[in-house]
Every structure is written in structure tokens, then in C-alpha cells.
């Protein structure tokens, strides 16, 4: 650990108030909260539940609109999940919110045994996915998808931007069964409205085509992948981007079809550890199908990540746009 005290420009550590929007980026406020409150107008069975993180998951928008359908469960994630299961058994559709770390780590058995085993209609929506806070390992959900992928019958969603979040909420309500959804909160970047895109549960979508590289990505990494593709379209590389917002069930057919187009380097980019996330899911899918392209993974290391300023950490761990560009340059 470095103990020297040197003056350098100070980057602040983002804690609970993290916003992933870059300066000047178009954003939309609280897309999850607004979308849910709107849907709930015609769906009296929707209820909101949280573990002292309504403000920090944008569920406070729903709570304000429907105070009688909002349940503050306290900092008790296990009870939150089991009680959401109980509400679902009585016919309600609970949206249970907390941070991704606490749902996946603290409440795992309660999700596995109560919610998933009976396939109850609980929608778990979780803030601070992957590395979206510099607060340290306690808040960095670097392995939530690996944990959740192990649960049979649990749908897993990793949306890219405000539009994706809004449309995913609608799809999740229409879907019967348990869902784990990663949330982006606060002022959330808006990028997918510039593409011919609509969220469909279980579907991967090709956002742009390209001859040299295929990036398969989910969550905020799709935003980065599109940025990388633009930057490298100066003649460095022609990059296709396949967005996979549903991690489970995985759209294997589309992934195999795109990866099978010859001559392209396949890069999976995810805001998650190299262990057990989209990268390994895609690798296994391709191997099982006998498709063997040149394959690379852009993901967080299998390590307890540092605390610090988010831009520093994204650079250090290779998921910033700049570090992605240099990795891909090196590979092609």
C-alpha cells in the first residue's frame, strides 16, 4: 500500500450517490422509478419493497406515487427477499430493491429457496451493478451474475441505458416468474435511442455490424462498446456490437450465428468478474456448438477490487473506453 502523501488532482471516491454518466452525456432521470410508477397505474398487483435503499434505487418515485403499496423493510435483505416471496404467494408482484451485492451475497438462500424454487413472481432490481462505485469490495457487485446464474429458472437482465431499463421493466412485469435485474439509477445515460433497438426478453440484438471484430456485451459495457466502435471506425477496425441484455436465458442461437461469421475476432465485454459471467457463458455456448473463433474477454479481474475514484478504477481494470480501445488494437 502506498503511503506517500503527494499532491495530485483529487478525484473523489463515489459512494452511494454514484452516477455513471459521463460529462455532457444525454441522460434521463430515474428511468426505473418512473417506468415502474407508470406501469403500476394499471397494475394494482405491483408493490414495491426495499431494504433502506429506496432513494438509492429510484424506488422512492414509486413509493411517492403509491405510498400504500410501498413497504420499507429496513436493512434486512434476507427478510426483504423472503417477504417478497410471501407477497407473491398472495398474488402480488413485488419489486424488491437493494444493492446488487446485498441481494446476491446476503440474501442468496432466501432468493434460491423461497423465490426461485417455487418460481414466485418476484422482481429483484438491484443498484450498483459490477464496478459502478469506488467504495470498495463491500459495494462492488463483481460476481452477482455468476452467483445468480446458478439459480435454476431465474431470469437475469443487465440493461445498458435508460431506454433499456424502461423497456426491461415493462417486459419483466409481463413475464411470469422470478427475475434478477441490474439497475442503473439517478441520471442514467441515454444512448440506445440512436439505434434501431427495442428490448425483448431473452433476445440479443445486433446494434451495429462490422467485419473485423464482434463485441458481445451487456449492461454499461454495450455503451462503451458502441463508443469503441465509433472511435475505431477511423480505419483501425470495423466493429460489430451484439448487445445481450438478457444473460439468462441466453440467446444462444443469435450468439452462435454471429460468432460463426468467419474472420472476426470475438470479444466479450462485461461489467463483471471474468468468473461465471457473460464471457464464460458465451465461451461455453460456442464450445458446445463447435464454433471456435478467436476469443477474448474484457472483464474485471478475479480479485477484490480497490477503493478509489471510478474513472481510475475503470482504467486500471480495463473496462474504460480507452483501455478497451488499446486492448483491441493490441489483439487485431
Amino acid at each position, binding site marked *: *500500500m502506498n503511503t506517500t502523501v503527494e499532491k495530485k488532482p483529487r*478525484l*473523489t471516491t463515489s459512494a452511494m450517490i454514484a452516477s455513471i454518466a459521463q460529462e455532457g452525456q444525454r441522460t434521463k432521470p430515474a428511468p426505473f422509478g418512473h417506468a415502474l410508477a407508470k406501469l403500476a397505474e394499471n397494475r394494482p398487483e405491483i408493490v414495491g419493497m426495499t431494504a433502506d435503499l429506496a432513494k*438509492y434505487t429510484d424506488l422512492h418515485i414509486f413509493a411517492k406515487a403509491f405510498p400504500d403499496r410501498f413497504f420499507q423493510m429496513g*436493512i434486512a435483505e434476507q427478510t426483504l427477499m423472503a417477504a417478497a416471496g410471501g407477497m407473491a404467494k398472495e398474488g402480488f408482484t413485488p419489486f424488491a430493491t437493494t444493492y446488487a451485492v446485498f441481494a446476491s451475497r446476503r440474501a442468496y438462500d432466501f432468493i434460491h429457496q423461497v423465490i426461485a424454487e417455487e418460481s414466485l413472481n418476484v422482481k429483484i432490481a438491484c443498484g450498483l451493478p459490477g464496478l459502478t462505485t469506488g467504495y470498495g469490495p463491500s459495494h462492488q457487485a463483481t460476481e452477482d451474475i455468476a452467483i445468480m446464474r446458478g439459480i435454476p429458472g431465474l431470469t437475469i437482465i443487465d440493461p445498458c441505458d435508460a431506454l433499456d431499463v424502461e423497456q426491461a421493466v415493462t417486459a419483466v412485469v409481463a413475464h411470469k416468474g422470478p427475475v434478477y435485474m441490474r439497475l442503473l439509477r439517478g441520471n442514467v445515460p441515454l444512448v440506445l435511442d440512436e439505434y434501431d433497438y427495442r428490448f425483448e426478453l431473452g433476445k440479443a440484438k445486433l446494434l451495429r455490424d462490422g467485419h473485423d471484430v464482434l463485441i458481445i456485451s451487456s449492461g454499461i459495457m454495450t455503451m462503451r462498446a458502441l463508443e469503441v466502435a465509433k472511435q475505431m471506425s477511423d480505419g483501425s477496425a470495423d466493429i460489430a456490437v451484439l448487445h445481450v441484455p438478457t444473460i439468462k436465458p441466453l440467446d444462444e442461437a443469435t450468439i452462435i450465428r454471429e460468432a460463426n461469421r468467419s474472420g472476426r475476432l470475438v470479444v466479450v465485454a462485461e461489467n463483471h468478474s471474468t468468473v461465471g459471467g457473460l464471457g464464460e457463458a458465451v465461451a461455453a455456448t460456442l464450445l458446445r456448438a463447435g464454433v471456435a473463433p478467436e476469443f477474448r474477454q474484457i472483464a474485471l479481474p478475479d480479485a477484490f477490487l480497490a477503493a478509489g475514484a471510478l474513472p481510475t478504477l475503470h482504467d486500471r481494470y480495463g473496462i474504460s473506453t480507452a483501455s478497451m480501445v488499446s486492448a483491441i488494437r493490441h489483439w487485431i
Partner: protein
Amino acid sequence: MKTPSQSPGKQDNVLSALSRHATNIRRHALRMGEVQGQGYIAQALGIADVLAVAYCHALNLRPEDPEWEGRDRFLLSHGHYAIAHYAALIEAGVIPAEELETYGCDDSRLPMSGMATYTPGMEMSGGSLGLGLPIAVGVALGLRQKGNPAFVYNSMSDGELDEGSTWEAALSAAHFGLSNLITIVDINKQQADGPSHQIMGFEPLADKWTAFGWHVRRIDGNDLAAVLSAFDEARNTAEAKPRVILSDTLMGRGVPFLEEREKNHFIRVDASEWQQAIDALDATPAAGACK
């Protein structure tokens, strides 16, 4: 750094020394807050009196050897109070004061959330609430098993009263008769989404802990004399029970304009206000001094 052990004639001296330490802890915390321009500063100001008594009176420590086997263990279960804990570790001489300049910066030993892996004197990695008390049960069992007479202190927040793990550990501490375990609950009546009573009602607290088999004392955690006597009682009572100090505190204590600010988990402090806060601190009659 330790004040002389309490005797009736020395009580006033002890209190005025502790009051200076508490003010210093508040000042260190404000200076760290200023480095980042944000932080859990209202919590730090609220718990400073308790930390002054813990670090400058009660704890048996060797500041130059934070891993000394004979030390009392102090667990910070509510990791977001790290700014307060660092301030106390600075006041106790465990961390050099110059280092507060690095608070929350990249590669600092003082990250925003307290972690054992980063900081000398930090006994656990917090950030995830409700871990401290169960760890403390294990440490207390381990100390007893080794015949080590040290105490283990667990500092926790009122929000952690919501977690099941806290009450599982409370049961087990009483079951094992862990008289070497002292828990301090910082009751600041605030959590992330709002006032604690709106988040999850936990009163009557003294009755709950008593029913769980603990030796209980409830105090005004900003009254240094009361804090001092609660710590002494917790260490000296002969009861074969774990001990809990329920400490009601005022967020922002010692800086009037922060005491009055709308209570919030994460208060707003403008760049120009940090120095004002430090100045206000110096002007405020030290807590407990007029008692």
C-alpha cells in the same frame, strides 16, 4: 495518550482532557471531509465523544504496534463511519496526522469505507452492515479460549439493528456468557432512506437487549461524563454477560450549523463551509466541559 484511570478527585481533569480529544477527533474528521468535499461527517461529529472515551481512556493499546496481541480489539461494524474511526486512530497516535490529506484518494490507506486490509488499527472490513457483532462473538470466544484478558468492542449503528445477523449474534453472545464483549450502538436516529423510526422501529431498545441477556446501559452519547461512566461500568461489572452501551447521539454535534441542517444520511457541505465548521468547533464550548 491514555488519560489516567478514573478516581473521584481526578474526574474533572479526565473529562477536560477527553473533551480536548473529542474536539481534536471532530477537527481531524472535518479536515478529511474537506479533502473529499463529502463524507459521513455528521455521523463522525455525533460519535466523536464515544470515540474519545474509547481511544483516549478505555482501550488498552500500543499505538506503535497496532497488532500487539494484548490489545483490546475495536471493531467498526458500520464501515461508513470510517472517517470518524480514522480521526480517532489519528488522535490515538496509530495513524500519522499528515495522512488525513489522503482520505478517500486513490491508493490511500484511508478509504471511505473502513477496511482491515488497508488501515493499521482497523480490525475488520466493513461496508456491509451487520457483520461486526457476529465477528466480535468469534473474537471474544477466541480471546477467552486463549486465556487472553483483552476486551473486544464492537461499534455499530442503529441501522444495523435491522439486520438479523445482529440479533443472532446477540443471542449467541449471551448464550456463551461473553463478558469480554462490549457493544456500542450509535443511536443517531438516522438511516439511508430517512429517520430510523420510519425505516424499522426498534424501540424499546434497552428492554430488547435486557431480554436477550445483556448488561445494558443507555446514555446520552454526547455527555462525556455519562460516556465515561458507561465504559467504566461495562469493563468493570462482575456480571457474566456481554455488555451493551446504547448511545443516543446528535448528528453534527459540535458544529451548530450542521446540527441544525436537515438530518440526512449524507449531508451537504459546501466547499466554503468546511473551514467555517472547524472554526465553529473551536468556538463551541467543549462537550461535557461545563458539567
